[in-house]
């Protein structure tokens, strides 16, 4: 297990090096004078296997004992090192390192942990990319090892300078641990190091953006006249700004001989004019301009739109750059500079200098400065409008603070509102509504979401001022926009014709430009309104599954079923994103059962043509397509990870025995006519993402009633082959099931939503600029709100803590956790069975009993992980179906902020899992076993129970199964089985006991076709046997006949993954 660290090395760029938790700690050399080889640094080859790069060496200064460096915070060892007894000292160590492309930072590998230095560099790279994307860069001419080069340098001013200062201050010491030549122990200056890194990263980010541009960027205009013998340096420089490396002259394009050095000097002189722009210095303080209204109207209810005497003021404030919460008005700077001087040196001069600078970009400021102690600038209404619309942006870009009244934002601008009335006498048909249904659609002119009356519009038209008081609030009125809006309304434009179009209209981004004004709101009543507001789930009349359905749905599951049916009726893709454990599977099966066994279900509404009028008072229940039609619906195609195929089959058989299920996967699956024939008698086809990707051509040629994506995170990367394949599958309806619609990035949400309802969130690029960057990077509440609004109709997510759900839940949910063996596990499993059966047959008495128990143990180990059977400490990788499934579960548990206990009988398995999981999940994993001293055990329990403590706790069943109180966990996973319910329940009760306030989910791993499943089934079948089990552990198994044992052990075909 590696802990990877990064540092910026001048001249070399980004270096990665790593500690390896599996290597011995002590350095053989005691010579501390010069840099010794780091004893547990990973070799360069181990690094290049994770990130492509070039091997090199680096000397790093690390806190060390004499014999070895200390472990970093991120390094995990199976057996932790004892805490150092002496204070550490800073010593140099030489480590293998690799130089990598900075894009590698954005692509972390799952099997390792990354140190704070890597996170810091990632932040820096993101800052560089952000500067480039906002055009905060300038071209420059530099000399690099004697050759001229064109470089894009960062322009850092105002808020960016504050950000840069914060990044410099946040740099962890390990990120500047490289010893630079001299034997000093100071380390490079963080500011200089960050500046060097930023320069390189920005240049790369710009070139990357230019290379990816849809139209090739060529800055050189066409030449007029003949080509001169000597090309001017300016042309060479301009050409080099868009090449990959920026060096010039560029061979083959512009020859070296054509460079004239005095010409180069002249170019450098001209560009020197830009030297001072945005060099990143943060002044001690920043002027802030705050727009305020001096004489608010006395009576907002009776506004005089043209009232001429409203006075606006731009007040001057001074804000500390180091601590932006410190802000004082100019009055105070003039009257009591002593107080201000405690945090700003020479406050009056700073304020004056800031005002002088601001007057360059905002010349209207000048008259206000013509007094001894300027405190504000007075404006008339035109001036205020100019300030709001133009000056504010310019001042902000120039690095000044600007504070505008809260009413000034996008929401209060002139726009269009669409009003939709839900029909009272119309039919709802699958795939949309009939035209009549939307006859009552209307466009209106509005400010924000307030529809304007005729009188108000007339007043706006008459008003001459750009800012108008309307309903007590100021509104900016652009006469041109007003005219365009009125023209649009006069043309009596038609509205959308289907529910899907209404929803798409509501999903529009204000920047979409095919209407004359932005759509500021969609007003809808009835069920469309409910859908838009996300309350459809609560207002729909609950749908009941048919009598043949064998499970009783909990109320929230019934609401989920109605919601799925409703969206299905409208032809809208639905994403059911309930928390894990809330029963997404059963809701989907109920939906299928309703549709296919509808005749037997009295609660399902009548066929479409006579459906009840849907309205608010009587929420609609939707008829399903083809319910009463002559042909039954085409089969539904359900895709899931391989490990869940068996689960779907079993659950379907259990809850909806009427559904005809066909598992389409594995080498024996049908093709061609055979497949068509099979589908003719199938309701639900369960297949895997891998199969669908492989067979996409064939599957895309078939007719599907519905496409269901279980664990829809599988398509979260829209470039993956699975995502591409599912887009090609035609289906009348699509449903995604996932517990984590967004695991890491918002782009994942785009991908899932785009599969469900293509185009709903725009192109990946527009989604990135409109939502992903503003929300993830800038935590822009407006963008987040818009995104929520757009996705709300299609996404239903209930969480376990939801009060409407929590009452419905039992206190403990037992889940049998299916998984499949990998090919390697299966082959080992068979070898063990063959080998042990021979031994069992050839032995008797005590020897036979011993052999049976040994066989059991070995088979359990195989199911855990091949390396556990082989005892060879080999890599974990993706060799165990159980571990892979465990990783998925833990990822989901952590994503929900929950804590989990994992029990195993095998200390060795725990030892393997602990470093692996902590690397994979990038979190601390506790491990308690029989050898853990009591004091350490108590400390672990206390930390696990504490808020913010570790979230994953592996315990050996014997050491941790009793006595401990671990109620911080609400998940319990039994990794391997003891087949003793009492022992298992005792372990489960570590979490499920007094003090536990949440529902506890208990998962027991069980692979179909292995002894895990067979013994489980035997216990279920024979109560008497179960009692024996309780009294006797696993001993009863030794009494089985050889034939019985053979049946028990033999590996079933269903056990193996494809």
């Amino acid at each position, binding site marked *: 297990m590696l802990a990877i660290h990064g540092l910026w090395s001048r001249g070399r760029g980004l270096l990665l090096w790593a500690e390896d938790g599996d290597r011995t700690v002590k350095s053989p050399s005691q010579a501390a004078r010069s840099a010794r080889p780091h004893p547990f640094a990973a070799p360069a080859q181990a690094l290049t296997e994770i990130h492509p790069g070039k091997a090199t060496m680096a000397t790093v200064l690390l*806190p060390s004992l004499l014999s070895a460096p200390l472990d970093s915070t991120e390094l995990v060892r199976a057996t932790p090192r004892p805490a150092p007894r002496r*204070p550490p*000292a800073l010593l140099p160590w030489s480590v293998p390192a690799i130089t990598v492309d900075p894009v590698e930072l954005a692509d972390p590998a799952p099997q390792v942990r990354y140190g*704070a230095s890597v996170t*810091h560099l990632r*932040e820096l790279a993101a800052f560089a990319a*952000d500067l480039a*994307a*906002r*055009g*905060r*860069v300038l071209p420059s001419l530099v000399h690099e090892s004697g050759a001229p080069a064109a470089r894009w340098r960062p322009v850092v001013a105002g808020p960016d300078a504050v950000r840069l200062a914060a990044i410099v*201050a*946040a*740099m*962890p*010491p*390990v990120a500047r641990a490289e010893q630079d030549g001299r034997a000093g*122990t100071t380390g490079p*200056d963080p500011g200089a190091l960050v500046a060097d890194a930023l320069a390189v990263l920005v240049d790369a980010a*710009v070139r990357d*953006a*230019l290379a990816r*541009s849809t139209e090739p*960027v060529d800055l*050189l205009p066409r030449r*007029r006249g003949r080509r001169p013998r000597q090309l001017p340096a*300016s042309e060479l420089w*301009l050409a080099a*700004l868009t090449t990959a490396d920026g060096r010039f002259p560029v061979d083959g394009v512009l020859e070296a001989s054509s460079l004239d050095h005095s010409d180069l*000097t002249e170019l*450098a*002189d001209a560009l020197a*004019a*830009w030297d001072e*722009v945005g060099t990143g210095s943060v002044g001690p303080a920043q002027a802030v301009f705050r727009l305020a209204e001096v004489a608010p109207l006395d009576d907002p209810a009776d506004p005089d739109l043209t009232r001429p005497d409203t006075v606006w003021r731009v007040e001057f404030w001074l804000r500390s750059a180091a601590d932006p919460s410190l802000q004082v008005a100019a009055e105070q700077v003039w009257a009591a*500079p*002593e107080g201000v*001087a*405690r945090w700003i040196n*020479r406050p*009056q*001069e700073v304020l*004056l*200098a800031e005002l*002088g*600078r601001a*007057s360059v*970009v905002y010349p209207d400021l000048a008259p206000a*400065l*013509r*007094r*001894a*102690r300027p405190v504000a600038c007075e404006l008339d209404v035109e001036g205020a409008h100019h300030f709001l619309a133009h000056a*504010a*942006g310019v001042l*902000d870009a120039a690095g000044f603070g600007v504070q505008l009244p809260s009413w000034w934002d996008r929401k209060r601008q002139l726009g269009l509102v669409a009003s939709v009335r839900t029909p009272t006498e119309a039919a709802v048909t699958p795939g949309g509504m009939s035209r009549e249904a939307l006859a009552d659609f209307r466009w209106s002119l509005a400010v924000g979401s307030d529809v304007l009356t005729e009188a108000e519009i007339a007043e706006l038209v008459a008003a001459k001022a750009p800012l108008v008081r309307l309903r007590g609030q100021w509104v900016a009125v652009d006469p041109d926009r007003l005219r365009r809006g009125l023209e649009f309304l006069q043309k009596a434009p038609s509205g959308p014709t289907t529910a899907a179009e209404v929803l798409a209209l509501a999903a529009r981004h204000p920047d979409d430009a095919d209407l004359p004004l932005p759509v500021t709101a969609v007003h809808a009543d009835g069920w469309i309104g409910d859908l838009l507001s996300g309350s459809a789930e609560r207002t729909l009349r609950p749908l009941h599954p048919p009598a043949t359905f064998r499970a009783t749905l909990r109320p929230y599951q019934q609401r989920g079923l109605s919601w799925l049916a409703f969206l299905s009726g409208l032809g809208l893709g639905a994403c059911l994103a309930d928390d894990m454990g809330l029963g997404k599977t059963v809701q989907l099966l109920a939906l299928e059962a309703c549709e296919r066994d509808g005749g037997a279900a009295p609660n399902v509404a009548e066929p479409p043509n006579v459906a009840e009028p849907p309205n608010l008072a009587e929420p609609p229940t939707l008829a399903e397509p083809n319910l009463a039609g002559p042909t039954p619906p085409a089969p539904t195609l359900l895709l899931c990870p391989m490990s869940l195929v068996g689960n779907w089959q079993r659950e379907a058989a259990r809850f909806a025995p009427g559904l005809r299920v066909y598992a389409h996967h594995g080498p024996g699956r049908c093709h061609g006519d055979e497949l068509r024939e099979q589908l003719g008698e199938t309701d639900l086809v369960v297949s895997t993402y891998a199969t669908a990707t492989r067979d996409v051509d064939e599957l895309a040629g078939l007719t599907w009633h519905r496409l269901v994506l279980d664990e829809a995170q599988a398509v979260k990367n829209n470039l993956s082959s699975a995502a591409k394949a599912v887009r090609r599958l035609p289906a009348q309806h699509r449903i995604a099931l996932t517990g984590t619609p967004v695991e890491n990035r918002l782009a994942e949400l785009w991908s899932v939503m785009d599969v469900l309802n293509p185009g709903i969130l725009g192109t990946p690029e527009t989604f990135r*600029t409109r939502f992903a960057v503003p929300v993830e990077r800038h*935590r*822009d509440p407006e963008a987040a709100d818009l995104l929520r609004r757009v996705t709300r109709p299609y996404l239903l997510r209930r969480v376990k803590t939801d009060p409407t759900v929590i009452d419905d839940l039992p206190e403990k949910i037992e889940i049998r956790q299916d998984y499949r063996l990998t090919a390697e596990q299966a082959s080992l499993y068979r070898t063990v069975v063959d080998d042990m059966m021979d031994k069992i047959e050839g032995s008797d008495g005590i020897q036979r009993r011993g052999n049976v128990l040994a066989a059991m143990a070995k088979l359990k180990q195989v199911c855990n992980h091949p390396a556990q059977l082989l005892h060879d400490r080999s890599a974990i990788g993706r060799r165990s179906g159980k571990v892979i499934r465990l990783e998925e579960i833990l990822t989901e548990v952590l994503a929900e902020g929950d804590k989990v206990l994992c029990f195993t009988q095998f200390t060795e398995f725990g030892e393997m899992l602990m470093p692996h999981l902590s690397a994979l999940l990038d979190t601390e994993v506790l491990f308690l076993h029989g050898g853990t001293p009591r004091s350490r055990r108590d400390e672990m329990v206390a930390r696990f129970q504490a808020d913010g403590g570790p979230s994953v706790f592996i315990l050996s069943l014997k050491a941790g199964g009793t006595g401990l109180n671990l109620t911080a966990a609400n998940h319990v996973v039994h990794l391997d089985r003891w087949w003793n319910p009492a022992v298992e329940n005792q372990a489960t009760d570590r979490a499920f006991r007094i003090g536990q306030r949440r529902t506890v989910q208990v998962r027991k791993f069980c692979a179909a076709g292995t002894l895990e499943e067979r013994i489980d089934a035997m216990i279920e079948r024979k109560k008497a046997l179960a009692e024996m089990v309780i009294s006797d552990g696993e001993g009863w198994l030794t009494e089985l006949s050889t034939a019985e044992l053979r049946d028990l052990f033999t590996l079933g075909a269903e056990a193996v993954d494809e």
Partner: protein
Amino acid sequence: MSDWYYPPSRPRRVEGGIRARSKRGEIAQSWWSARFIQGLESAGVGGRLARGRSYARAGQVLDLTVDAGSAVALVQGSRSRPYKVRVGLAAFGKAQWARVEQALADNAWYAAKLLAGEMPTDIEDVFTAAGLHLFPAGVRELAMDCSCPDYEVPCKHLAATLFLLAESFDADPFAILALRGRSREELLDNLRAHRGGGAPPAADQHGPAAGALADCLDTFFLAAPLPPCPPPAATAADALLDQLPTTGLSVRGHELVELLRPAYRAMGGP
């Protein structure tokens, strides 16, 4: 007089002299430095101005200090000992400055502009009102001395000094006021006193320097938390191009800023 008759005198090369930042064309960039050496071109005799300019660019001026009433420089010529150069301009008296300072303190515009690195365009109004002139009427109003044998005034050494002086005014408009008798610090202190906010300036504050690595062993692997990054104002990706000082550079007949614009738009993405 033919050049071949008198061997041209070559200046000795100098290390560490003050080099003019401008490498070509006019040296004084701002209106106020241009105004200060107004008339120098017409006053130049022979090639002295051009040579003075190349002296300034070559770094032949060893030292330049501006004081009340005069600027003094050492210029390395062809002789081993540098020439002493002095440019004099009458400093204003205490009473005269008091009038000017009162007027400046009453109108924050002037100090604001000066502190932002610009000479206010209407600065001369303040001095005129006090019966004074900030700028010399022409270089002839300047007292110019040089210890070189050249009898022409200005000689190339004086010209080099004047060019560098003008360039120092570009960078710091307060320097012209200093020549007239008020250093930047004195002036700012007096203006503050006139305004009535008499706080003495605090000692210079510096941010905490990054600790030596050996001093942060406890937090060696930890990063300080970064505050969330506030959303930037929505401006076009090419907005910066419209806020830049001009370079005067054009390529194939097109202005540089316009040539760069497509690149900035491409950076902004779709």
